[in-house]
């Protein structure tokens, strides 16, 4: 167990619910803290009779949502200015074309909801970055709140419940959750790449078919005369028929 986690657990044991709310809020705002493990431990402590499970859930959920909103607002206030600067052509920002920034904004507006929702409970390590990104990309706030609250309900409930169920073995559960979330992420990336690969193959096939059709069109004369009547080539070879 890391020293940081040990310190956080001591803080949790000594100061109770307040310590939980503060540490969860800070982590959700973007500071990299092992908050899933703290929630697992809190669930285990509640199974051992030290905390009330329902109260833990309410506090953890509210802290997560507040922290996420803080991250979003920071991104919206300062991050969007940075992106605006990148969009303007200039001496220092010539490496990222303004069109790319605009395209990323459009893409995030279309697909960002899923990224926000999934990063609340499956890829929680990315949560802080996604909040800043959502703010920077000016993702619509009502949609952000909707995806965030629904995701965080699961994000708070899953570790607390697992901790409550497995009690003193919560550390081993935490060791499973890390590689499991990476495995799910890997699967998603594989599915995405396979989809892309199929699309490129189809595009390539279509392009090749079009090329063959074009070459047939070039070979046939515009008047529609048959191939057998074509004159001898300059090389002197006669046609087969």
């Amino acid at each position, binding site marked *: 167990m890391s020293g940081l986690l040990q310190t956080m657990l001591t803080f949790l044991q000594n100061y109770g619910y307040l310590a939980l709310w503060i540490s969860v809020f800070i982590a959700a705002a973007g500071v990299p803290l092992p908050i899933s493990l703290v929630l697992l431990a809190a669930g285990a402590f509640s199974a051992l009779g030290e905390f009330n499970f329902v109260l833990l859930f309410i506090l953890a959920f509210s802290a997560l949502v507040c922290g996420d909103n803080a991250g979003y607002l920071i991104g919206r206030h300062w991050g969007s200015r940075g992106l605006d600067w990148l969009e303007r052509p200039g001496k220092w920002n010539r490496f990222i074309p303004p069109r790319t920034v605009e395209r990323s904004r459009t893409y995030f507006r279309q697909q960002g909801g899923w990224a926000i929702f999934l990063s609340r409970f499956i890829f929680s390590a990315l949560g802080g970055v996604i909040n800043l990104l959502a703010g920077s990309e000016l993702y619509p706030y009502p949609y952000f709140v909707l995806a965030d609250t629904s995701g965080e309900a699961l994000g708070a409930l899953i570790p607390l419940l697992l901790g409550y169920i497995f009690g*003193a073995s919560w550390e081993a559960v935490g060791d499973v959750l890390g590689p499991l979330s990476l495995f799910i992420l890997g699967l998603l990336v594989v599915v995405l790449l396979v989809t892309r690969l199929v699309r490129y193959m189809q595009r390539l096939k279509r392009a090749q078919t079009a090329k063959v059709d074009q070459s047939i069109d070039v070979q046939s004369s515009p008047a529609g005369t048959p191939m057998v009547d074509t004159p001898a080539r300059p090389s002197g070879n006669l046609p087969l028929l």
Partner: protein
Amino acid sequence: MPLLSTRTKLVVTGILLCVALGATIFCAVQTVQAIQRFREEHALTTSGDVRTIRPWMTIHDISRVYHVPENYLYKWLDIANPQSVRHATLNSLAARYHRSLDGLIGDVQNAVRTYRKEHQSYLSSSRNAQGPPSLRRRET
């Protein structure tokens, strides 16, 4: 030009797919191993094995998990005022009493083992006092 571009994209995507597949398989193996470790540890914890005592546990937690009275543990560790350390983890207890963490965990493990022995001998002696019916008949 667009044909070449699509072909390049296809090759790059193929390479990325291979890398992603490799990473996913690696993560799958890690997950399976972690699940196995979890099952072993959970089995040890539920059976009450004292090796699973951890630095994050408080005396209260240990008494709940290993079924030993809290007062017995406080007495064993020579803690005069249990109320003041009720929420202290073994880690913070070790720091407070200037002891090594491993030494403190070892002491707690001994306390649990001793309590179980005392309790078991008490149980077995009470069981022996009753004795099997055939023996009792012979004694009389």
